[in-house]
């Protein structure tokens, strides 16, 4: 997987680049819009992450130019503006997704994976598994070590979302928007409550704990006990 990162802020570029490399991407970094355009035209990338405010050529014009030259690389737009208008403008320019700064890296990674998945049209699996857990999307049946787990709809939705991002940390905001389709933060422990209910059914009766909390960041479904150091 090859990713192009067009971002002029060194610190942001540093942590996004490092995070993507840890997630298995080969990352090229461009500091301004023109360099980004040149790179995107010379190489074929699986995904591009483009900041809107860039020196020389702004992000929207970069995307526009790519689309005019029939480069179909999926693009995730990064922007410090959060109004609906800005989002619409970004998507109209040919962006595929939009993320507002400041963002959780977990969310960026999840969106990048979603874009790559959409672009490569990986056939949709009907069963999601991790370790001895299996979730059947058609019959909506969840088993662990052959034992059927009785999950309520929200618990099922949360587990499905975690299974679609195996080994990747998902933030509370991401869970909130995927499980409840709420786009604002109701400032309460709704997600904590749901996670602890799921944990009660998924992990408590078993020896191996799969649903792990990454403090300050979110939750992850991992089949190794300890986070990699």
């Amino acid at each position, binding site marked *: 997987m090859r990713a192009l990162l067009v971002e002029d802020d060194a610190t942001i570029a540093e942590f996004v680049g490092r995070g993507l490399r840890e997630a298995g991407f080969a990352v090229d970094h461009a500091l301004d819009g023109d360099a980004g355009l040149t790179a995107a035209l010379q190489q074929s990338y699986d995904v591009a992450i483009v900041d809107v405010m860039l020196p020389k050529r702004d992000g929207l014009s970069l995307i526009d130019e790519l689309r005019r030259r029939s480069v179909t690389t999926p693009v995730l737009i990064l922007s410090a503006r*959060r*109004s*609906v*208008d800005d989002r619409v403008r970004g998507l109209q320019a040919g962006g595929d997704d939009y993320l507002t700064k*400041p963002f*959780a890296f977990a969310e960026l990674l999840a969106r990048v994976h979603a874009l790559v998945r959409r672009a490569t049209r990986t056939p949709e699996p009907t069963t999601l598994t991790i370790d001895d857990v299996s979730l059947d999307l058609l019959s909506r049946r969840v088993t662990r070590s052959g034992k059927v787990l009785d999950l309520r709809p*929200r618990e099922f939705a949360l587990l499905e979302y975690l299974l679609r991002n195996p080994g990747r940390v998902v933030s509370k905001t991401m869970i909130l928007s995927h499980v*409840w389709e*709420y*786009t*604002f*933060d*109701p*400032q*309460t*422990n*709704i997600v904590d*409550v*749901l996670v*602890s*209910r799921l944990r009660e059914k998924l992990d408590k009766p078993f020896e191996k704990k799969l649903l792990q909390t990454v*403090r*300050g*960041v979110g939750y992850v479904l991992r089949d190794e006990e300890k986070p990699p150091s």
Partner: protein
Amino acid sequence: MNGTDGRQPGPRYFGLRLGLWYATLFVVGSIAIVYLTYYLTAASLAQRDQQIIRAKLADYAAAYARGGGRVLAATVRAEQQAAPERLYVRVVDRGVETVVLSMPEGWDPATLETASARLYDGTLVEVGKSSEPRKALLARFRAVLGVVTFSIVVIALTGGWLATLSAVMPIRRLTSTVRQIIRTGRTDSRVPLAGTNDAIEELTLLFNTMLDRIEGLVTAMRGALDNVSHDLRTPLTRLRGTAELALAGAPDPERYREALAECVEEADRVLVMLNTLMDISEAESGAMQLQREPVVLSEVVDRAVELYRDVADAKGVTLKGDEGSPEGRRSIVSGDRTRLEQVAANLLDNAIKYTPAGGTVDVAIERDGLDATIVVRDTGTGIPASELPRIWDRLFRGDASRSERGLGLGLSLVKAIVEAHGGTVGVASEPGHGSVFTVTLPSITRL
């Protein structure tokens, strides 16, 4: 002053143009009237002279018919000696002998106006009148008219100048105020009203109203900025403190991990706070973009109840959804669905937070005329009367709420969003027994 001043015509030129137009029209009109008067007067004077000549000619012809040349001569002599208007009379006898019967002294034959008649025996009688007096009269008349015309032009120019000055004056005042505002950036200047109740006055009034609005927005934005920077200082201090404390201690990965996690959480709180403060400011100043659509209120409430079901269960609080009147459930309001969901969620969040285990929170939609009201009742700690008016204030945390997690912005956001929708919020509380929060919105459906 910048370059834009040279490009625009400006009120001075506008006034000059207006004045010139006015004066030109006035002068042309006046001259036309004067010329017409003079022409008609001259024509009628000439006509009158001709009538006199012709009348006399007829008289003399009759006299000649009565008694020939002698009687005519006698008549002419008798008449012309006493007459106020003397005439020139000549008789040409059968084309040969000319007899001048009357020729007033000093008359120049070249200026005579004459008429003649041939009598029955071939004698020609000619009567004439000098045009000198008429010409003198007309000359004096012309002089008078000249003075009058000159006066008219002077009055027209002066009047035009004064009139345009008074018309342009309010525009100039407007211009200079605007220029001053542009130069100084101060929006508290106002254009003085002249009290004339005309179109310019209306424009001035509208302009002042616009300034009021702009000033209000600017003040609100400054206030919001002050508040935001103030409100962010506390969490940023915590953030910095946590990081500093970890760095100052002995190197310990576990401690670092702990501190970093706290920093991330604190940063997330800062972000949520910033977004919420921006939302509140935007809603309060009227700058919030509401994506209005018809929204069934019960859908919004049901979704919020569903969202908080597990939280309430976990806390041991009974959450009762809307079982209100069918009229209430059918209520449709014009609003931003996401914002209204935020309102409902925040109300429930607040109610569940302050209701101890074993308590109840129930939600209902009530209908009263055109108003639809979301009522959230809890059996919680209640709010002391002294704190009631302040619970909608930003960052207000009552004594009872200090131990609870939260930003103290939820209710402010509720109020700001509801008021941006043209609705009202209300609260009633009995300490120790619980509180009732209400959100009333104008419904677009009739009962």
